[in-house]
């Protein structure tokens, strides 16, 4: 059996890479990908911890996350498309109409 720490390390790394994508990439689609990576990092943890859980909470939770993440992506994509139609860009550096004056 793989020591639990390995999973955690992988998950932490995945989380940090996901965060870095969210923080630095300018394209909304990248950001969405980054968020998916963060979700996956949580999933890895949950599954790893849930290996020995008789009620399988970890697995069930990560299944829930996957579903919700999918739903969120749907909403995000819908908005991205409208946004692109309105602003003709999906670069976050250019979507700065709302800001402190």
């Amino acid at each position, binding site marked *: 059996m793989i020591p*639990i720490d390995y999973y*955690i390390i992988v*998950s932490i790394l995945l*989380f940090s890479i*996901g965060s870095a994508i*969210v923080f630095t990439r300018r394209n*909304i689609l990248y*950001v*969405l990908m980054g*968020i998916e990576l*963060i*979700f996956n*990092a*949580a*999933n*890895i*943890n*949950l599954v*790893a*911890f*849930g290996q020995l*859980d008789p009620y399988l*909470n*970890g697995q*069930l*939770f990560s299944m*829930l*996350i996957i579903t*919700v993440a999918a*739903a*969120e992506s749907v*909403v*995000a994509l*819908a*908005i*991205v498309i*409208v*946004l692109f139609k*309105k*602003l003709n860009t999906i670069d976050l550096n250019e*979507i700065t*109409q*709302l*800001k*402190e*004056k």
Partner: protein
Amino acid sequence: MNILDHIQESLQYLAPEGMLVLALLAVLFADMFQATRKNAVFATLTIGCLLSVGVYVGYELFDRNSIPNVEFMSNMLVQNPVILFSKLLLIISGIIEIVFIQVYHYSQYLRERGETYMLFLAILLGCFFLVASVNLFMVFLSLELISVPSYMLVASRLDKKSTEAGMKYLLYGAFATGVMLFGISLIYGLTAGLDLFSERWILAFAAIPVFSKWIVLGLVLAALFFKTSLFPFHPWTPDTYEGSSWGVLNILSTLPKIAAFIFLMRISALFEGMQSYSILIAVIVGFSLLVGNFSALVQQNVRRLMAYSSIAQGGFIGMALLGGGDLSQQSLIFYLVTYLFSVPVALFILDYFEHISKGDAVNNFKGFGKKEPIMSIIFVLVMATLIGLPPTAGFFAKIFVFTSVWQYYETIQSPILLGVICVAVAGTVASVFYYMKVPYFLFFKEFENTVILTSKHKSSLVFVSLTMLPVVVLFFCPDRLMDLLKVIVAYI
């Protein structure tokens, strides 16, 4: 007990939620078969549902002898007077919001779409679950049930500003959710469970080394801070407020906040006496007060001003989370009651003025006080509520909150709490200035606008007056509500 019997038994407690789902479906079907969309079918359905849920919940609540403090649905949810009372608040708030959309004809695009009501009901459903949940499953799910429809509502005006606001809100919310999920996964690993309120979980949580206990908990609470727009999860607020329509803002600034604060209150009750939790909240709250109040002070745009005000208000409410005792809980609910009546009125009147003046800068409101005296006076009253001045219940709300923090400070003598109190006092003073900024322009500047005010707004006046009434009435009998709350919070 057989699991199926348990589920069957649990269903009786799910009646309100069930009714909401039924209403949601009914709106869906009505939307599918409705040709014109012009009449008030959706609103009637929604309000009817809300009223019946309200009556049901009210009956459950005040027939207190029959209320057990039970967990049901395999320890997913819990039923007790506090939760019923919160649901009552949510329903009242919900009714105000639906009426808000109905009364005001500038919210037309919202009023005539069935989707609005569906999303609204989904948010309300999420709030119902959130206040009652005792399991991270339900916490996460209800938060999503609140968030995702909110993103869509924000973006629903479908113009440049609105979609941008929706996009930012979504990205920010998804990020906060991600952080929370990561926290949940760690918590799960550390305590081997998601049933937040069980004794086993509390013991397991207590065993975690202090050094990292609060870090993981902080990560878990991130999404709640996001919902309540507390520091440092507040930056979305101004942009979203600027971008979306007032009707949506009204929903965003009341329902999720009430639910999230009630849930946080329950968490606080869970951690009552744990100083470290209080310190975490104290820091968050202190910074929220600082950011909200002082940034609002320099705003020229009423939407952003209200956004920062909502951050600050979150801070004030959050102060009641610190103590965790009976008084704190009472004062938190009291504050929420004041808040849920006053904020819709403020937003409504600003919406009204904004549409008259065709602009959302304070400058545009010059001299409206003379053209719209009653509306303006009620607005002053709302602002007084938010500042915490007599003769509004806001005054007592502030007093209770301050008292609860002071009481807690007296017990633990932490300088951080003292700091929070100082920041809150400074913030209250500052709030006078920014809240009175709009009335200042309303009354003391000459009317410049050339637009002729022709709107028939009798219904608007009735709406704002009636909504403001409880706040004023509460000022004269705060003890009634406090006594009621005292009984209720004993069940937490």
